[in-house]
């Protein structure tokens, strides 16, 4: 289906299920999720808190705390190998080297008692067998790459000496130090101001072009998705509910949840006279369902304005509604709206 050179499938997630076993019962945080990640492309995963987007990324990295969590089913094929079947030591070789991750909070994900240089050196010494001296030079080079001024001085700074934007750059420098094939960025700019966010997104785009890595970008900000992503998966209550290429999903959102999300953000709009329009925001009524008491049928039914009886009987499957050579537009909704 895909032309091999242009769209090399790097990662294939098939039927992924990750559950947390709590006192109240099994929470199916990620429930039968499928997607592909292509070389040089960006997959955006959108959704609100608790929809399972972070758990998906942690599952790929095999960083789900066990207990209480466990990936109970599915396959994560990286270049044809199932990551879920690798031994811990095999996984350690891939993690941080071929697949890297940056987290939302740059303050809590850096170790406060080591200099940032030391933390970058740790990864390159482990994966690339560099000497301390070479590793230090590599760290300086990485800091330079992500645009930190006077990196030869900053390399000896502790995380608390850096601003939020700088810390996120350090995280990126660390994640990129081994030139990963896939970078998972979990809300990389959520904690940052817009001007710094613009810097970081620009940097990610630039680095992606330079190294051709694939990016999995997890965010709740549809603006960031529109700017960065090639393909988009919308998640709700542990499921992918809509999937399409970025242009298609913004032009033709079909799942009521996606529509609701798009309508509930205030948009900077101007009418032809140059005046700014103001309309009342559309809302999605209610809140996300309790993952321990999911309704029978569609998981979005309680908040959906298009709900009919059939929605309450059986959960719709993800079905293709428009063909596309790379990613067919599919939705998990039984209605045609």
């Amino acid at each position: 289906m895909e032309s091999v050179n242009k769209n090399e499938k790097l990662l294939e997630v098939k039927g992924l299920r990750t559950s947390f076993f709590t006192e109240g019962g099994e929470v199916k945080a990620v429930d039968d999720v499928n997607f592909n990640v292509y070389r040089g492309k960006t997959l955006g995963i959108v959704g609100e808190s608790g929809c399972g987007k972070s758990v998906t990324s942690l599952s790929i990295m095999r960083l789900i705390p066990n207990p209480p969590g466990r990936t109970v089913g599915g396959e994560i094929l990286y270049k044809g190998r199932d990551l879920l079947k690798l031994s811990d030591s095999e996984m350690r070789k891939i993690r941080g080297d071929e697949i890297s991750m940056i987290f939302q909070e740059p303050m809590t994900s850096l170790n406060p008692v080591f200099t940032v240089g030391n933390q970058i050196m740790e990864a390159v010494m482990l994966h690339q067998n560099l000497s301390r001296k070479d590793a230090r030079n590599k760290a300086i080079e990485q800091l330079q790459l992500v645009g930190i001024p006077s990196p030869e001085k900053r390399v000896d700074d502790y995380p608390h000496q850096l601003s939020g934007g700088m810390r996120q750059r350090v995280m990126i420098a660390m994640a990129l130090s081994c030139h990963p094939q896939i970078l998972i960025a979990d809300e990389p700019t959520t904690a940052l101001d817009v001007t710094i966010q613009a810097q970081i997104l620009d940097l990610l785009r630039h680095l992606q072009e330079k190294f051709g890595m694939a990016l999995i970008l997890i965010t709740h900000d549809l603006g960031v998705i529109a700017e960065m992503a090639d393909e988009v998966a919308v998640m709700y209550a542990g499921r992918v509910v809509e999937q399409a290429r970025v242009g298609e999903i913004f032009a033709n959102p079909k799942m009521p949840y996606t529509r609701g999300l798009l309508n509930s953000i205030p948009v900077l709009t101007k009418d032809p006279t140059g005046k700014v329009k103001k309309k009342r925001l559309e809302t999605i009524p209610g809140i996300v369902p309790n993952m321990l008491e999911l309704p029978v049928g569609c998981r979005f039914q309680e908040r959906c304005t298009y709900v009919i009886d059939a929605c309450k009987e059986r959960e719709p499957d993800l079905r293709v509604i428009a063909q596309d050579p790379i990613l067919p537009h599919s939705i998990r909704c039984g209605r045609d709206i």
Partner: protein
Amino acid sequence: MEAQNTPNGEVLLSVRNLVKRFPIKGGILSREVASVKAVSDVSFDIKKGETLGLVGESGCGKSTLGRCILRLIEPSSGQVFFKGQDITKINGNEMRKLRRNMQIIFQDPYASLNPRMTVEDILAEPLVIHKIGANRHERMQRIIKLLDLCGLRREAISRYPHEFSGGQRQRICIARALAVSPEFIVCDEPVSALDVSIQAQIVNLMQDLQKELGLTYLFIAHDLKVVEHISTRVAVMYLGKISELATAEALYADPKHPYTRALLSAIPIPDPTYKKERIILRGDVPSPINPPSGCFFHPRCPIAKDNCQGEFPASKNFGTEGEGAHDVSCYYAQ
């Protein structure tokens, strides 16, 4: 910025030359060695019934300014006039009485509710303090009204904060602020901690309440889209100073200050077909301990010239008669 930007409507709150410095103590005698100039020389008016949006990046002093206005933090100098009365001069007792008219909603609905109090206790507390309602029964009537007003179910009354979602907790915070029927509410990032679909619910609720109760808001946020949506006028803050203040329409359609332009251009637009020119600012916000000389923005400014390092530019009004004032503190604003 003088009080001239009031073509119509009565001024409810005026801030004049407000300054807040936080001392940094050091040395063995813990003398003041430096200070953080969180708010430096800020003046503006808020008219009755309007929403003044206050935007800026973290650390620009917007929350400190909001708290100084309510004297939750004592300002270092300057005046705040509420209905003509200088509230920086009155004593604690009088201030407490005045707080009936001035309330605040905080960012984090998880941290701003006492986990050991039921919703009834939370909403009754301001009523008891301000002696509203003669007995528990009367207070209960009022609490039920507040819950209805804020879209909460009546069963909520005997429950604890942890039993609610983030959006519902923010509704409780709003109900608490409204309990004493204030005229003016400082909303300090009221929706930043919430998911987008919930954000829209709260923004709509706040707009409905404003219409119904004639409230005046100071709406502090870093999300420029939300601020545009809810505000009548918008002030942009940078390093403790207001760099631009105009009606929301004028500010977003025709930003004059280079900082405002950069901020607006940095917002990701949820439309993949829209390609715009982005102004990417270099570096970070400088430290407010040693702000740059002259215009605070000059080290990051794409259009700065030599004289920008000299003195802080006085604000100029670019507004037209019909559209109201458009104050900009920049030598090269066009």
